[in-house]
Every structure is written in C-alpha cells, then in structure tokens.
C-alpha cells in the first residue's frame, strides 16, 4: 500500500480493536497498575502471544505482502534512550491512563 491516505482504513480497524479491547479505559488501566483487576494485562498477553505465533508463521512460510515483496519485520534498536524514554512514557501512561 503506497498511497498515504489509504492508511486511514487500517488505522480505523486498529482504533476499533484498541477501543473494543478497552485500551482507552482510564479506570481499567489504573486497576491494572494497582494490581486490582488484571483484565488489560491478560488482553495484552493474549495480543502478544497471538502476534508472536502469527508473525513467526508469516516469516517461516515466507509469505509475501500485498505488493508481492517478502515480509520484512523491522524493530527499533536498543539504546540508552529506550530505558529512559520508556520510564518517562510510563509516567505519562500512569498519569493519563491511555
């Protein structure tokens, strides 16, 4: 998918999934960080598990993307900012619950 404006559609699907998973629910985030109700943690672990299995399959089966190229997973490099930025992000996450 090359045209930038087309990305509004996968964005809508992602936004729908995130909100249906309650990843926009302040109260539920607080209950998770206070270890009172771990619903969001289980949701996240299921998401990570399903993503790990399906991504591994996608790479093993050498499936190609819509444009016919082999799927290339990319990740961010680890550096000092990962930890420091992550902690600052975490403070904001706990304050805003979103």
């Amino acid at each position, binding site marked *: 998918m090359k045209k930038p404006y087309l990305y509004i559609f996968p964005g809508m699907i992602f936004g729908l999934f*995130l909100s249906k998973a309650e990843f926009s629910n302040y109260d539920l985030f*607080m209950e998770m960080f206070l270890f009172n109700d771990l619903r969001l943690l289980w949701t996240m672990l*299921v998401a990570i598990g399903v993503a790990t299995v399906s991504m591994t399959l996608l790479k093993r089966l050498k499936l190609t993307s819509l444009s016919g190229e082999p799927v290339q997973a990319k990740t961010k490099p680890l550096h000092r900012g990962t930890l420091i930025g992550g902690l*600052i992000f975490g403070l904001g996450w706990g304050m805003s619950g979103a």
Partner: protein
Amino acid sequence: MDIINFLTDPWPWWFAGAMVGLFLPFFYYLANRPLGVSTGYGNFCKIVVPHTKLEALNTKAYKEIFTWRVFFIIGIILGAAVPKILSGDFSLITEFAKFNSTVTASIPLSGLWFLTGGILLGLGSRIGHGCTSAHTINGIPNFASSGFVASASFFAGAILITNIIYRLIF
C-alpha cells in the same frame, strides 16, 4: 450478539486481545512496514511548524509531512469514535470515575494533570523511539530486545506513579 452491540460494547478480553495480536501480521501484509504510531506525532508537529530547522523534525521520517502515519493516526481516532457516534453513545467527558472520586481535583487542575501525562507520553516515546505499538505490539513478537526493555520500563513508570497517587497520597 447483533452487529450493533458488537460495535458499541467492549469485546470479551480474549477475543479483543487476539484481534489486536492479529492486526500485526495483517498490517505487515498490507504495508510491509513495522506498526508504529508515535513517530507520527512529529508529522503533526510539522503541520504546525513546517519550516522548522530542528534536527529531530528533519529526519527521513519527516521529509514529507503527510506520510501514511498521519492518516493512520486519524484512522485510529475515527475507528474508536465512529461506532460510539453511530450508536448515539458519544460524549466528551471531563472526568474519569476513579480519578475524580479519589483525587477530587477541579477541572482546570485535573486538566493540567492529564495534559502533563500526555506531554510525558509524547516526550518519552520520542526519547525511547517508540510507544506501546512499536515496542510492545511489534517489538516483543519480533523478539527485539528494545521491545522487552521498553515495555518493562513503561510498566515500571506507570506502576510507580499510579501507586504514589492512589496508595501513598490519596
């Protein structure tokens, strides 16, 4: 469960989690690029200051302003809001149950609290080169060490501030 309830009510946690998980390979199939949201915030900054000389806003990701990320973020907001609007359930809220029943801050003060939280989210995700999408949803399933470190520090920061507020102060 009819289609209206399906779009307006939260989904069972295991189903919603599986859908979020499946979105990752779906997105690689469509776009063949890693899922990421927070880099796009820089694109929105550039809409406001298009001619900035700031080095951080002149990297490869920001050569053009209206990249896929801008539309992806607009889509996320629409995808979450449209079902609510269609069902007539949409309203702008000025309080969150747990925050307002515990902290009992006035609206300007709680606004300042959430604004500060948002600024820290933006700042941290740029220093750490990613948010929960890039690090937790894309990083961990692709076995990136940065994904594990970032996700652990996200939780450390959030658990710290939440317990200070709700267990120590209030």
